[in-house]
């Protein structure tokens, strides 16, 4: 429990590390990296301990709720809800949430005994509140009544202190603190882990860089900001963390700011995010007032989930917030900054632009899920904005990845596409699936990026896989194998982690065969499957260019050192196995033991009044097989094309199945294959579609961004020259000109003639006096 109430130590430690590196880093033997690595190491250990503590905590809660946590059957247990719900917030420190406080207050008056187990560990803060059984604050009660889901409520541990007072004394306290529940704990672990590995990796990768110390300082600051964001107790705090990670991203993308493209990319990232931040600010402000002047996430969530906030307001707020999500998480139409952000050092791309910061948007939606859930009417509908944006992004992002030569850009578009998967998942109500995919994606995508970094390390800092890579399989075996595993996970190959998480997302849409999750999102499902296919395909292409064929670059590449390969191995291993953290209950006839399945769901997903009741899709065997087949096809086609393209056509295959026959027909005739692949698929994808997409990307979207920038400059110039200098100044000057026959308007005020000032002064005084004389009469 101590760990749950003292999570603030982690961001504080990282912030301290930032300052320490800046202050003394350059004088240390390893230029400050040791501070950063040590600090982030401690943080990771703390995060693990926190997670363990949370695990313990959840189990305790489960028992006290007299409810076996394993029961997943949808059984509206109203009595059950009443039983444990008042205690669901017993770990919320007083003052952190007005709604909870009110509930506590009323509970107290009725039943003062209400002892509870949650804080027997003797921590000084979260105790002392004796929530009554009935907790009859209207909102809470309503929420709990609706709460039909089976397992026990997990109790968020919330601590806070007053940040500042604003407004009348009774209703104005704005708090800052930590809110620890499954979601934040798991995110802490992800951030801690990836950050630690990236730190270690960086000590080798950026070794000898001109701004080595600054680099580590900003890594520390980024980790601190991200943890601050993750642990946020209030939405205001989230805004702060959100912007701080943005500024770290700015600093790190522009790390090599001597070159203009890098600083342009940094600016583009920051400005695009700022555009989304309009939505963030406005959305958060709406929620603040909607929740009765409270920034507390708990308040907002409870009220949103219980209908305490009108649907219209929630809709507006969620649409506003969606803009922020689109910018930060690279969703379509605001995604253009993310590929450019690859101008930063590769470890930064792995940490910030793949694994952690870009999922801040996902995290935001997940954190304020009731707002989106109710605002967008996710349950029971078949289309909503989140799902549409996510699905479009998933598909188009994947398509764009085909035409890239730069391996990091492939991965960047892949990230965009995968983030689209997560957003869609949230949009269709598959909350857990989204979080789970976030988790697995962080592992394998970080691995891929770091692997790309390792290759460029070998290949003279080039990322152009088409021209400078090739045949690295033999030279860099460790990089190769880790890359392969991570690619498999990304493509969703059984039984790697990506398979499980992607499949859960697909199942959450409802399938063509049966209904599942919160609705029937068939269109999105189709788009995601196309996205999944493309993912497998472009990754295979990437592997071909990187590892097979002959080395096309200059010099002799070599395998990277242990500080690079060890993180790769760790990440690849995790990428392979973390999928088992959230095994479905059963796959067809096979039942998994209780200790294995749905762990993630149980410990991460919040249950209670501050979270909507979402339903979970069952593992759907036909769908899983289908998606696996699609992924297989995605691997197969490029495999045939790239790996086998030069060989004679494979005849036997055509007799085995129709799909292969079709593939064979393609292969028999090379031109036909070329036609199919180059002209029809690649051609279409690479030609009209991708070019259109790229064109749209470069011309329209970038054009709009650039155009707005340029337009603003032009407008600014015009306004400045014509209005500021002429009209406004002119108006001032005109006052002195009224009776003058000649003389330019501008020249007049500049005359410096005292008598004109005198005239002006007396006239003004007389006029004003006149006004007063008339008015006061």
């Amino acid at each position, binding site marked *: 429990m101590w760990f749950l109430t003292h999570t603030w130590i982690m961001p504080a430690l990282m912030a301290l590390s930032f300052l320490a590196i800046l202050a003394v880093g350059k004088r240390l033997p390893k230029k400050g990296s040791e501070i950063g690595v040590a600090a982030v190491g401690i943080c990771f250990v703390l995060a693990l301990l926190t997670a363990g503590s949370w695990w313990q905590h959840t189990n305790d809660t489960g028992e006290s709720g007299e409810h076996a946590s394993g029961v997943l059957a949808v059984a509206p247990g109203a009595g059950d809800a009443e039983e444990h719900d008042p205690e669901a917030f017993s770990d919320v420190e007083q003052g952190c949430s007005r709604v909870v406080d009110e509930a506590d207050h009323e509970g107290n008056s009725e039943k003062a005994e209400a002892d509870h187990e949650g804080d027997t560990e003797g921590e000084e803060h979260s105790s002392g509140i004796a929530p009554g059984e009935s907790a009859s604050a209207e909102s809470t009660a309503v929420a709990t009544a609706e709460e039909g889901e089976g397992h026990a409520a997990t109790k968020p541990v919330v601590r806070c202190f007053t940040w500042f007072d604003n407004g009348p004394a009774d209703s104005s306290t704005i708090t800052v603190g930590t809110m620890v529940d499954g979601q934040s704990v798991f995110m802490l672990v992800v951030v801690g882990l990836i950050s630690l590995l990236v730190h270690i990796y960086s000590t080798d990768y950026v070794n000898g860089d001109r701004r080595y110390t600054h680099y580590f300082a900003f890594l520390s600051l980024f980790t601190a900001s991200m943890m601050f964001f993750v642990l946020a107790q209030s939405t205001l705090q989230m805004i702060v963390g959100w912007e701080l990670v943005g500024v770290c991203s700015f600093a790190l993308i522009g790390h090599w700011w001597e070159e203009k493209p890098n600083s342009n990319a940094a600016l583009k990232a920051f400005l695009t995010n700022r555009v989304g931040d309009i939505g963030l600010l406005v959305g958060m402000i709406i929620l603040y007032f909607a929740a009765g002047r409270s920034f507390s996430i708990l308040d907002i969530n409870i009220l949103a989930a219980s209908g305490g906030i009108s649907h219209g307001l929630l809709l507006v707020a969620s649409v506003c917030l969606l803009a922020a999500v689109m910018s930060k998480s690279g969703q379509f139409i605001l995604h253009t900054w993310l590929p450019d952000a690859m101008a930063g050092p590769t470890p930064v791309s792995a940490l910030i632009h793949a694994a952690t910061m870009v999922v801040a948007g996902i995290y935001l939606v997940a954190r304020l899920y009731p707002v989106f859930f109710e605002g967008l009417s996710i349950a029971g509908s078949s289309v909503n904005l989140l799902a549409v944006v996510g699905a479009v992004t998933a598909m188009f992002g994947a398509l764009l990845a085909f035409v890239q030569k730069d391996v990091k850009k492939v991965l960047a578009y892949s990230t965009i596409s995968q983030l689209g998967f997560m957003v869609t998942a949230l949009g269709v109500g598959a909350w857990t699936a989204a979080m789970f995919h976030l988790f697995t994606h962080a592992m394998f995508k970080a691995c891929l990026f770091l692997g790309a970094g390792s290759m460029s390390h070998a290949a003279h800092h080039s990322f152009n896989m088409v021209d400078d890579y090739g045949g690295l399989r033999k030279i860099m075996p460790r990089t190769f194998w880790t890359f392969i595993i991570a690619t498999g996970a990304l493509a969703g190959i059984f039984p790697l982690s990506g398979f499980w998480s992607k499949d859960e997302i697909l199942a959450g849409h409802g399938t063509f065969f049966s209904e599942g999750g919160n609705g029937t999102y068939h269109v999105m499902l189709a788009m995601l499957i196309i996205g999944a296919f493309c993912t497998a395909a472009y990754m295979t292409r990437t592997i071909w260019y990187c590892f097979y064929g002959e080395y096309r670059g200059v010099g002799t590449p070599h395998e990277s050192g242990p500080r690079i390969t060890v993180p790769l191995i760790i990440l690849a291993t995790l990428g392979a196995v973390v999928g088992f953290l959230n095994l479905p209950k059963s796959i067809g006839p096979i039942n998994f033991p209780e200790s294995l399945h749905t762990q993630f769901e149980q410990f991460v997903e919040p249950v209670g009044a501050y979270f909507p009741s979402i339903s979970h899709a069952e593992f759907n065997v036909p769908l899983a097989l289908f998606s696996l087949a699609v992924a297989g096809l995605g691997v197969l086609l490029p495999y045939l094309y790239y790996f086998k393209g030069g060989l004679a056509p494979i005849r036997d295959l055509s007799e085995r199945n129709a799909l292969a026959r079709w593939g064979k027909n393609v292969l028999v005739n090379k031109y036909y294959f070329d036609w199919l692949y180059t002209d029809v698929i690649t051609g279409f994808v690479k030609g009209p579609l991708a070019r259109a997409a790229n064109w749209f990307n470069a011309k329209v979207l970038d054009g709009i961004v650039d155009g707005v920038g340029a337009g603003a400059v032009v407008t600014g110039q015009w306004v400045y020259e014509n209005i500021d200098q002429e009209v406004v100044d002119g108006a001032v000057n005109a006052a002195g000109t*009224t*009776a*003058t*026959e000649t003389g330019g308007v501008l020249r007049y005020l500049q005359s410096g003639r005292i*008598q*004109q000032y005198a*005239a002006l002064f*007396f*006239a003004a005084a*007389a*006029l004003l*006096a*006149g006004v007063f*004389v008339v008015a006061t*009469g």
Partner: protein
Amino acid sequence: MIAALAPLSFLAQSATGNSFDVPANVVFYIVAAFMVFAAIRVVTTDNIVHAALWLILVLSGVGLNFLLLQAEFVAITQILVYLGAIVVLFLFGIMLTRAPLGRADDLDNNMRPIGVAVGLLLTAVIAFALIRTFGNDSLTFEAYAGSQAVAGNNRTTALANEIFGPQLIPFEVLSVLLTAALIGAIVLARRD
């Protein structure tokens, strides 16, 4: 000196009683008409020396007005200081700057219309305010009566009491100011 002027102030004396209001008014309006005319000439004449002479007329008129208002001492001072010192200073200034002694066409700038407008506007506003505020209030000289009683029916003594009593410090400050101005003028005008 003051005594010599006593006959002149009969007009003012009489103002307390209604019987002499009419002659006082007659004198006032004649004087006022002269003053306005002279003042306009001051700001419109194209001979700089004439302007100074017209100014003398205005300043004398102001002095007469003071007499009408039973402020003989101020009237005397007005005549002495203005006519005796200031106008002479002006004439010195005119000579020293070698201004054209005859007519000159370039005494005004091109802002006459705005000047007229501002002037008329000011007059209108002030007049409107005055008329609405004070209407037909008559002069009663009540305030003088009180202070005269203290000073033995002598207005000049009363004034002296006022200056060297409550207003002593401002008076001293004023003398310092005059000295400072004197020094300042010397510093400015001296040839280095």
